[in-house]
C-alpha cells in the first residue's frame, strides 16, 4: 500500500509484525485537509495516505505544525477532507462517533462535574453502549486496569495530571472502540510521569491489543510506543515514509544507525523549512 507513493523507499523488511488482517482497519487515501483561520485558508496536510491495521500502534510523527493533529481530528470526524477519503472498516468517516474514541492532550477533557467513575459511565451511557449496572461494572473494570480503583469516586480536580490522563485512557478503552485516537496525550506531563504513562499504555496494549492511532512530535516516544511510525514533513504535512519499530530503538543493519537517529535525520533534513513554518494547533 505504501510503495505506490511517490518517492517511497523501503527501509529494512516491510512485512507487518502483528498478523495483519486481509483488510486495513483505517484507510487514509490521498487526504488533503484545509481549514480557515480569520484571514487565511491553510492547508494542513497534502495528499496523505496510510493504512492502519487491527492491533496497530500506529504513530504519526512530525514537527509542530505538520498537520498531524488536524489529521487526527479528521479521523475523529471533526472535519472533512477537502480531497481524498478516510474509511474505517471500509465505511467513509462522517460525524464523530463512539467507534473512534479520542484521548486529548488537555487535562480538561474530563467532565469536572463527574467523578472518575461517572466520567467513564457518562461515555458508555451517552453513546448508548451500556447502561445501569453493566456500565458501572465496565467502568470499574477499566478504572482498575489503569490502577485508579481507589480514586473511582474522586472528582477530577483532586487528581494529578498523570491520573487525569489515565482516567481519559480508561474512559476511551472502556468504550472498546474500533480505534483509539490519541493526540499527544502525554505531552503536558512531566518527564517521569510521561515515561511511566508510556509504559502503562504498552502494558494495556499487551493486555487487550487495541488499535491506536497516536500523534506525537517526540521521536523517543514514537520509537517506544509505535510498531509502525509514519513520518510527516513540515507544514503542509506530507508523508515522508513509514518505519517499523519494536520499541527498543535497534541499530539498522543496512545503514548502521539507530532508528531514532534515522528518523531525526529524515525529519530535520529540511530544518530551514521547518523554522519558517507558522505553528498552529
Amino acid at each position, binding site marked *: 500500500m505504501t510503495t505506490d507513493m511517490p518517492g517511497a523507499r523501503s527501509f529494512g523488511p516491510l512485512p507487518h509484525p502483528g498478523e495483519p488482517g486481509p483488510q486495513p482497519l483505517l484507510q487514509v487515501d490521498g487526504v488533503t485537509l484545509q481549514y480557515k483561520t480569520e484571514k487565511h485558508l491553510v492547508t494542513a496536510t497534502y495528499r496523505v495516505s496510510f493504512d492502519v491495521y487491527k492491533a496497530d500502534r500506529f504513530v504519526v510523527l512530525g514537527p509542530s505544525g505538520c498537520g498531524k493533529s488536524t489529521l487526527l481530528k479528521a479521523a475523529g470526524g*471533526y472535519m472533512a477532507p477537502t480531497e481524498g477519503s478516510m474509511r474505517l472498516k471500509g465505511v467513509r468517516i462522517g460525524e*464523530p462517533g463512539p467507534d473512534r474514541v*479520542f484521548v*486529548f492532550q488537555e487535562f480538561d477533557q474530563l467532565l*469536572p*462535574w463527574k467523578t472518575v467513575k461517572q466520567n467513564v459511565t457518562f*461515555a458508555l451511557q*451517552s*453513546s*448508548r453502549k451500556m447502561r445501569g449496572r453493566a456500565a458501572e461494572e465496565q467502568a470499574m473494570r477499566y478504572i482498575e486496569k489503569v490502577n485508579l480503583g481507589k480514586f473511582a469516586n474522586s472528582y477530577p480536580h483532586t487528581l494529578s495530571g498523570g491520573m487525569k490522563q489515565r482516567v481519559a485512557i480508561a474512559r476511551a478503552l472502556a468504550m472498546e472502540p474500533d480505534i483509539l485516537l490519541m493526540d499527544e496525550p502525554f505531552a503536558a506531563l512531566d518527564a517521569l510521569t510521561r515515561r511511566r504513562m508510556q509504559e502503562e499504555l504498552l502494558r494495556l496494549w499487551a493486555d487487550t491489543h487495541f488499535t491506536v492511532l497516536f500523534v506525537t512530535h517526540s521521536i523517543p516516544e514514537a520509537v517506544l510506543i509505535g510498531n509502525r511510525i509514519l513520518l510527516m514533513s513540515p507544514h503542509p504535512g506530507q508523508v515522508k515514509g513509514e518505519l517499523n519499530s519494536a520499541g527498543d530503538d535497534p541499530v539498522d543493519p543496512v545503514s548502521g544507525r539507530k532508528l531514532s537517529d534515522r528518523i531525526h535525520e529524515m525529519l530535520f533534513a529540511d530544518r530551514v523549512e521547518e523554522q519558517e513554518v507558522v505553528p498552529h494547533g
Partner: protein
Amino acid sequence: MADTRFAVPRPEAGLPPVRAEYVKDVVAGQDMGVVQAPLTIWQRLANQGWLRKLLLLAAIALTWEIYAQQLNNALLVPTFSATLDALREGIVSGEIPEKVVSSLQVLLKGYALGLALAMLLTGLAMMSKLGNDLLETLTSAFNPLPAIALLPLALIWFGLGDRSIIFVLVHSVLWAVALNTHSGFRSVSNTLRMVGRNYGLRGPRLIARVLIPAAFPSILTGLKIGWAFAWRTLIAAELVFGVSSGRGGLGWYIYEHKNMLDIPAVFAGLFAVILIGLIVENLIFRNIEAATVRRWGMQS
C-alpha cells in the same frame, strides 16, 4: 551591613564563592518540639469568619444604640432596641410575614418568567448566528437600563397591580441571566464539546449533558445577579405603588409606616429586606455553590 554569615573568601570576579560540602543528620520529629499541635480554642474561634463578622455587627449595633439614644429623636433615627421591638411586633402581629409572603410571591413569578425568557433567548443564540446577534444587541441595549425606569411605562401598559411589577422584574432578571448563561456557554472549552460529540451527543443532549453543567458557574452567577436585581427592583417598585396590588409587600410596609411617622417600623421593614436578601444569598445560593461548582473544583 557587615554580616558574618557571608564572610567567605572573595570569589573570582563574577563567580560564586567556593564552599565546603557538608552532610548532617536531621532531628527526629519528637525532638523538634511541636510538629503538629491543635490550636487553642481562642485561635480556632478567631479563625471563624462568621464569628468575626458577628462581633463587627454587634459593635455597629452598639454604636447605633448609643448614638440614637444621645440624639433622642425617634423620628430621625430610632434606637436599635426600638427597631428590634418594632420588628418583633411586626412579626408577632403577622404583618411582616404577610408582607414578605406577598413580596416573595410576586418576586418568584417575575423571576421564573425572566428565567424562562432568558433560556429562550440563549437557546436562540446557541442555535443561530442571528439569534446570537439578537441576544448581544438586546442585552447591551437593555442591561444598562435600570428596571425601575420602566415603571411609568409599565403603569400605562399593565395598569396598577402585580402585572406591572412582574414586568419590571422580568426586565431586571432577563438580561443578567441571559448574558451570563450565554457567556458561560461560549467559554466551554472546545475539548469538552469534542468529548461530548465523540460519545455521540448532539443538539439538545449535548446542551443538557455537557454545555449546561460546564457553563454552570456562569449560569449560577447569572442567577445570583438576577436575584439581587429582582429583589432591589421589587422593593423599589412596591414603594411606588405597592398598595394597588391589594395587600402590598415589604416596600409598601415601609412606605405605609413612613406616612404614619412610625419610623422604628420603617427601620424594621428595611431590616426585613436585608435579612431576606442575606438568607437567600447565604443559605440558598451558598449551599447550591457548595454542592456544585465548589465540589467540582470549578470555582474556589
